[in-house]
């Protein structure tokens, strides 16, 4: 999986800024996507490209349980969020609906990745290759359950 980085040097990016409450009434995924990250970066939907990754600090996706958050990012084309830690509900929502991959990295790796870097993520090897900088990082492996849900393609396909 190869994509370019959109980096937000912030901790605690909450689901209210990923998709503000007023849009939770919207059922159409494409319409939701036009408001992705509106609370933090209103230009996001116009600059994001299919296959991009978001990189951010700790506790990504904290706050409300709205599954609209990973849906909005995924519909925009985001394939993975790479962060130093995640809030649990966002993490599970991302995996359960097979919307995007939540990938945990350490602080050092977080510092090394810059905005617009091209990365290749290899989840079999737990490895992130920074093609722009020609560096290789280790990602935190998924736990057994998460790896299985991801491999199955979401919660409902898991153990079917």
């Amino acid at each position: 999986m190869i994509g370019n980085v959109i980096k937000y040097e912030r901790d605690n990016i909450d689901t209210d800024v990923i998709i503000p409450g007023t849009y939770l009434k919207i059922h159409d995924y494409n319409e939701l996507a036009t408001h992705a990250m509106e609370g933090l970066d209103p230009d996001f939907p116009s600059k994001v490209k299919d296959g991009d990754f978001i990189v951010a600090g700790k506790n990504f996706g904290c706050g409300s349980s709205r599954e609209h958050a990973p849906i909005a990012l995924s519909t925009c084309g985001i394939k993975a969020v790479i962060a130093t830690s995640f809030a649990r509900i966002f993490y599970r929502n991302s995996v359960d609906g097979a919307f995007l991959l939540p990938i945990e990295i350490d602080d050092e790796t977080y510092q090394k990745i810059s905005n617009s870097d091209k990365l290749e993520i290899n989840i079999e090897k737990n490895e992130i290759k920074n093609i722009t900088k020609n560096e290789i990082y280790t990602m935190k492996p998924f736990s057994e359950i998460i790896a299985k849900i991801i491999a199955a393609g979401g919660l409902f396909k898991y153990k079917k």
Partner: protein
Amino acid sequence: MTETLFEKIWNSHIVVEKENEPSLIYIDRHLIHEVTSPQAFDGLRANHRDVRRRDLTVATIDHNVPTTDRSLPMIDETSSTQIKTLEKNCKDFGIKLFGINDPNQGIVHVIGPQLGITLPGSTIVCGDSHTSTQGAFGAFAFGIGTSEVEHTLATQTLWLEKPKTFEILATGKRKNSFAITSKDIILSIIKQIGTDGGTGHVLEYRGDAITDLSMEQRMTICNMSIEAGSRAGLIAPDEKTYDYLNNRMYTPKNYDDLVDDWKKNLMSDANSKFDKSFTIDVEKIEPQVSWGTNPAMVSDVTGKIPTPEDFGQNNEIQIESAKKALLYMDLKPDTPIIEIPIDRVFIGSCTNARLEDLKDAAEIVKGKTVNSDVGAIVVPGSQMVKLEAEKLGLDKIFKDANFEWRESGCSMCLGMNPDILKPGERCASTSNRNFEGRQGSGGRTHLVSPVMAAASAIAGHFVDVREWC
């Protein structure tokens, strides 16, 4: 082997357990609201599945509802559609719905306990992060996403990784038990352990300072467990818990037998081991006011806005986040909290809109008038709370003081209905999240207790409510 309360609840709900695998956990109660359920019902239909235990599933409408006159048609068409969708889903699948005009309608986490749906020792889920509120009754209650809502509807179970345990020991006695509330206790805890301090853990609040609290105060504490990143928060049940749940609509018929059983089992064993522990002395706690854009950015009311450097303590990311927060909040370091003027006051939300919250706020407001520069509303947590408050004449006290007295719902906590801040407006709010734009795009939220919100409404700026009582 000793077990914590959480471990006892977890172990008694395991359906499938294998080493290095997730556990399949039985869910005793599933609460539903209009925002996180539509796609779950669509999923059931698409896969020709039914609701497995409609008798354990209860729905209400809270996020979208207008808090003004409900006999009028709804102006917002998309809200109206979402509400009608839940009505149809509940009808099609045979689920009990406390609908928009039902006397038991209210915020889902307020009506769960009020109707006796919440029970000690049970597992409770809802597609809403503040489900943790119901942990106050000694339940494992936690928020889930829509895929998990669908899974619960279809199977009444969930695949879960076992969380770790985290003891929060609260000792001492509050110096002023009216002015210093459970909201101040939980804000102080989050200030110290951080917004991710509880990640991967279930918090158990223990100690004399917790057992001293009423059930409604305990709910405020457990409600905000999620703001510390934790999976859930809970408090061992006691006589107060059992009294509260007696004779409610859903209270089981064999309640006395259940209570006998709970009294024997529902506590952490002596010397049980927690993965983490944190102690707080409540005697040192002052009224709290948040100044930033997450619930750990909090100050004593007698304090000042910190400099980013003081807040960040050499952590670059923290310093940067404080700078951004101050910019968003339009605040300058070293400003005394009590000099910050406010435009709006919101007394409501699943954190602080129960009867005791309204009673305490009314005590402050009685005979006074809201500052002419401030717009203030009270939104009871449920229609039942509203009715009880009106029986006590609280509505009159608030209205005489120029507060608006509204119908129940989530309202200005998250800005899904017309109750929102305008860009730049500053609000003293009894809700749970001060995130950017949470109460409306560009709105600035300060989290406080109901008595602090009430006193600030009168003064037009933050005040130390201890001087008012």
